[in-house]
């Protein structure tokens, strides 16, 4: 596709990225690193600096300090060279309301024509509409589109160039469950073909399902940047649901080696310091029926809530 510069394995790399609007520090010393081919989730509360960071990556907002490298190219210096390889959805889709979705894509594409003949470009527009499920809407003006349709049109616009890097802000905003599933499948499919994804989202479950790595912003700083698997490693606690909690407590309390119950909520017990298998074996041996036993993992939500400022605090 586009002959963009090679990224030395990095799709996105920032060093000390800082942005002040007047006296307000929107983003402070962010070192964001996204490897090529990775699916990176970008989370954080409202006003944490996510969008400003994304805008700086794409050259819309100019950094006060720090460096941005996109697919190995310097931003904003080499923007014109690198942007053809990047597809983006920033703060919601936008289109000319009096034109059809197809006309909108054709117009955007004509403003900075991609490679190939006119017919090939038209075919790419059709393909992009097809993959987001908008091929059938015909000549209807965007003005009459639903929120979900606009969102899908925005995605199509990002996909027309078959980019190497997709930067998507809230990609499933306004979509119904089927639409969300469809977009997730599409993104995973693109990722399997080698496209790098940088997805910023409030929906932590979405990031959990979609992404392999996650970065969390809080008050302008990148406070977490880690593999989803590492963040979601077992906590060492085992959650057990039993028919008879009293008996279960007694059984586990008699154990010489192994964990003990730290708390119980009705029929659910939390056991610390013992693998699931040992807990289940001891309970079953003692004749206590086990309905469910699972090693506790933290959700991404737990991680994000723990590392970021609670809502309502000064931000």
């Amino acid at each position, binding site marked *: 596709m586009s002959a963009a510069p090679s990224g030395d394995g990095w799709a996105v790399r920032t060093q000390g990225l800082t942005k002040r609007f007047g006296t307000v520090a929107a983003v402070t010393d962010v070192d964001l690193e996204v490897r090529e081919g990775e699916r990176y989730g970008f989370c954080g509360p409202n006003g944490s600096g996510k969008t400003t960071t994304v*805008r700086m990556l794409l050259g*819309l907002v100019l950094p006060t300090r720090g460096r941005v490298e996109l697919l190995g190219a310097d931003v904003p210096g080499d923007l014109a060279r690198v942007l053809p390889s990047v597809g983006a959805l920033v703060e919601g889709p936008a289109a000319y309301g*009096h034109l059809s979705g197809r*006309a909108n894509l054709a117009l*955007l594409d*004509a403003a*900075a*024509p991609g*490679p190939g003949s006119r017919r090939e470009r038209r075919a790419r527009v059709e393909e992009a509409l097809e993959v987001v499920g908008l091929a059938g809407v015909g000549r209807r003006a965007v003005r009459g589109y639903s929120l979900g349709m606009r969102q899908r049109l925005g995605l199509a616009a990002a996909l027309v160039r078959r980019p190497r890097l997709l930067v998507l802000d809230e990609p499933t905003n306004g979509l119904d469950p089927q639409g969300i599933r469809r977009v997730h499948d599409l993104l995973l499919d693109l990722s399997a073909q080698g496209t790098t994804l940088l997805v910023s989202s409030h929906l932590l479950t979405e990031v959990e399902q979609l992404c392999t790595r996650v970065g969390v912003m809080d008050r302008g700083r990148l406070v977490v940047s880690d593999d989803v698997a590492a963040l979601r490693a077992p906590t060492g606690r085992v959650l057990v649901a039993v028919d008879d909690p009293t008996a279960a407590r007694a059984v586990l309390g008699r154990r010489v080696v192994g964990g003990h119950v730290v708390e119980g909520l009705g029929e659910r017990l939390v056991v610390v310091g013992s693998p699931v298998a040992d807990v289940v074996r001891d309970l079953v041996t003692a004749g206590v029926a086990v309905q469910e036993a699972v090693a506790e993992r933290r959700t991404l939500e737990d991680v994000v809530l723990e590392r970021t400022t609670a809502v309502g605090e000064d931000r």
Partner: protein
Amino acid sequence: MSGQAPALAAVVGVELRKLAARPRTWVTIGMLCALPVVVAVLLSVTEVAPRPGAGPAFLSAVLANGQLYPAAALGIVLPVFLPVAVAVVAGDAIAGEAAAGTLRYLLLRPVGRTRLLVAKLAGVLAFTAAAVVAVTATAWVAGVLLLGDAPVATATTTSGSALSTGELLWRTALVMAYVTLSMTGVAALSLLLSTLTDSPLAAALGGLGLLVSSTVLVALDAAQGLRDLLPTRYWLAWVDLFRDPVLWTDVQRGLLVQGGWVVVLLGAAWANFTTRDITS
């Protein structure tokens, strides 16, 4: 083209397509054309023309020959109607895209900021030229149908000598060009404001503010020192193109003044737009 910024021509083409696809463009041009037609109808029904020297320049002459009417029609829309339309289109240029959110997607294509600004300017000029051509054409038809159709030989300059058809044509063409270029000052200010605000309305009103202030100051004796620098100062100099021989002095000054405003205002627009954070 891959991996490179697009040619300017592509961006200008897209701008022109966007303007042409917008109903507002044609409604505005239609309204611009309607006013001279209404004036022509009133003149032909009443046969009452303003006294020479009073009312819109030139109108008194057109009762005798409708072929002079295109120039008179341009004189009618020049002081207010045309600059208002130009300010609205120019004010919408960047701010309208920002308000709609399409500005960021254009820049991400990527359309370079300088290219986009130049393309927007080309779009505004094309709109102005199209409006001027449309007004001239409708006024010619209205003039020939409704007003005096005395032979061309009797079409006279304001100096009293006769005009041949050929002379009438090139003089009218010069007036069209001069009127179009006279709008560039207002267009440039609205375009500058359009890069400063995300509100198309504010940008258009700013351009109109310049128009009104300039008109007031030109008429004010106390502003004599400034007067010759004001953008509307030489707007009516198009009448000189119908003198015999053509009186070029004020036309040239008018073009120089517009040029000065355009260079300063567009320079500022460029400096602002290429270094500004796009947060819309």
